[in-house]
């Protein structure tokens, strides 16, 4: 005897016909469609064989998935355990891992001119790593922009958004007196601190990434205290694009120059300066500034895109 599922497979009956018809009439009669869907569901439920067969198949698939998942997890755990077992013990003598570090510690100051050896490492010896990281940030910002940006094409219209905007303006954080008052005192201090960390990357802990993150955080606090309108006056999408582009391309060209001269044994014309002064460390300071600008722009760009789906006020307020 053929059961319902078998007949459906053979094409004798079409269970989907009613449903696809319903999809076409979607706009006219929702209530009717719901009723009909319920009837269809009841009808399908009544064919016990079909239900049982689907359930059985699902059960089997689920077991396969579970087994594969467990195998994958165990494999990954084993691989990681194996690799960790290969690492040298904490504090143990290890020639391969310590030669480079010793070289950095012994000759770092004279070769890079930076007192902070970490800055000398990430912005001089391994500057291409940092260049890659900056580009990762840049790419991440572009991805967020692709996903979240609201422009005239994908702007939603309707009452729900209108109410949301009204609520946003009514409960806006910039109306908060406490936040505003504290922001007046706090934001300049955080900005100066960020700039200090940024400019002293070669002399003290910090550098491009930390300083940029602090400046980005300061801009976020400024925005939540005083509203987007004030920030839009100077921070537009155009400015953001130009700053990021100039910083990244400056980084690439400057570091390309250094690596080119270094690899070919040519003379490097960038002065090292006195270690400890702000203008020292050769290219480390400008590179720090470049990285910091990219990071600050990215941080604030994330926040701006998450909050209202755009950078800068080119569109005006959403739904205005």
């Amino acid at each position, binding site marked *: 005897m053929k059961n319902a599922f078998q007949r459906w497979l053979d094409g004798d009956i079409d269970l989907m016909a009613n449903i696809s018809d319903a999809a076409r009439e979607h706009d006219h009669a929702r209530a009717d469609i719901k009723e009909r869907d319920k009837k269809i569901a009841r009808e399908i439920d009544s064919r016990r064989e079909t239900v049982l067969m689907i359930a059985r198949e699902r059960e089997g698939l689920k077991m396969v998935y579970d087994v594969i998942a467990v195998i994958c997890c165990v494999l990954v755990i084993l691989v990681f355990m194996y690799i960790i077992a290969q690492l040298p013990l904490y504090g143990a003598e290890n020639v391969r891992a310590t030669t480079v570090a010793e070289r950095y510690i012994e000759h770092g100051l004279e070769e890079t001119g930076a007192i*902070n050896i*970490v800055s000398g490492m990430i912005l001089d010896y391994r500057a291409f790593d940092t260049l890659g990281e900056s580009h990762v940030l840049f790419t991440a910002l572009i991805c967020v922009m692709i996903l979240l940006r609201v422009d005239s094409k994908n702007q939603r219209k309707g009452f729900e958004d209108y109410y*949301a905007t009204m609520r946003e303006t009514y409960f806006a954080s910039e109306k908060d007196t406490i936040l505003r008052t504290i922001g007046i005192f706090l934001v300049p201090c955080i900005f100066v601190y960020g700039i200090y960390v940024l400019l002293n990357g070669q002399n003290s802990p*910090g550098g491009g990434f930390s300083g940029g*993150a602090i400046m980005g955080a300061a801009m976020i606090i400024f925005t939540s205290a005083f509203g987007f309108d004030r920030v839009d006056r100077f921070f537009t999408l155009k400015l953001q694009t130009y700053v990021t582009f100039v910083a990244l391309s400056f980084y690439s060209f400057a570091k390309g120059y250094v690596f080119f001269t270094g690899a070919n044994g040519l003379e490097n014309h960038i002065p090292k300066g006195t270690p400890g002064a702000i203008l020292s460390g050769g290219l480390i300071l400008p590179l720090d500034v470049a990285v910091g600008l990219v990071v600050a722009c990215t941080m604030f760009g*994330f*926040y701006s895109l*998450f909050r209202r789906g755009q950078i800068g006020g080119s569109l005006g307020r959403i739904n205005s």
Partner: protein
Amino acid sequence: MDLSEIFKIILIVLLIGCAVAVNLTPSLLQAVIIFMSYSSVMCLLWILMESPDLAITEAAVGAGVSGLLFLVTLKKIRREDENAEPGETGPAEGKGSRR
């Protein structure tokens, strides 16, 4: 065992506690706050491990900006939740509960 060792052990226990608690907390808002406190503890640990530059970054990015982005996202999600018709998509009941 001197005092700094004990302090370190307390911090590491806190760190692990935070990491586990983030996964077990039913409320998303609380999970975000615990995640931010995880970053703060990690920041202290970086200082104890003598890498203050990482500590600064961790405090600014981990405890500050990323937590903020999570909060903004939560706000957006809840707004969408309120707009959705109840019963249509399902996850409208139990605001902030993880499903």
